[in-house]
């Protein structure tokens, strides 16, 4: 059972475009929703995170939008650059299972020059 569903699987945008990656969840026991960026052969790096009592969070060119009633959240990358080409994972944290993270399947983003 996939508890966090992520889409699209892959995404190609032109430099300067705004890629949007979407995630959906079912379990209401999640209390924290981070996004990770992973380059080939490297470990995931924490990018930005949000709590469910906030509808939007912005850090630099990265923005999370959160819709608690729809159980959906998304990552927007403003003014995307070729260096943003990586795989992005959304995740959700169980508040009652020791802080266990459940990850989405990942989105491979390619930003063309």
């Amino acid at each position: 059972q996939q508890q966090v569903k992520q889409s699209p699987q892959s995404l190609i945008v032109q430099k300067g475009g705004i890629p949007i990656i979407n995630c959906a969840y079912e379990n209401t026991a999640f209390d924290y929703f981070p996004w990770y960026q992973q380059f080939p052969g490297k470990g995931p790096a924490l990018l930005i995170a949000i709590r469910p009592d906030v509808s939007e969070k912005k850090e630099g060119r990265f923005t999370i939008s959160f819709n608690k009633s729809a159980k959906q959240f998304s990552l927007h990358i403003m003014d995307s650059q070729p260096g943003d080409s990586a795989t992005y994972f959304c995740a959700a944290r169980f508040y009652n299972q020791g802080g266990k993270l459940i990850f989405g399947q990942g989105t491979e983003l390619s930003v063309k020059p």
Partner: protein
Amino acid sequence: EAEVAQSPRYKITEKSQAVAFWCDPISGHATLYWYRQILGQGPELLVQFQDESVVDDSQLPKDRFSAERLKGVDSTLKIQPAELGDSAMYLCASSLAVEQFFGPGTRLTVL
């Protein structure tokens, strides 16, 4: 900047051999996690430690996998015997509060 250290970075082994991975979390981080990431998928938790105690090992294949964190600092994950399906990236993460920080991982190839 403090980082999670892992070694080795790459490991190639034959089926039925034993392998071990080591992780040194960020100093002061009481919680340590081992994840497995199959190519093209998100990481999946294998085991979680709080200090030296196991908090969650529900997804750890205990017939062949073992993990320990004897002094509550660094940790070792062992596989014995390794199987072809164990080929994956093994990631260690640590946390002080909510945020989890990952190491570079160990890429395991089982031949």
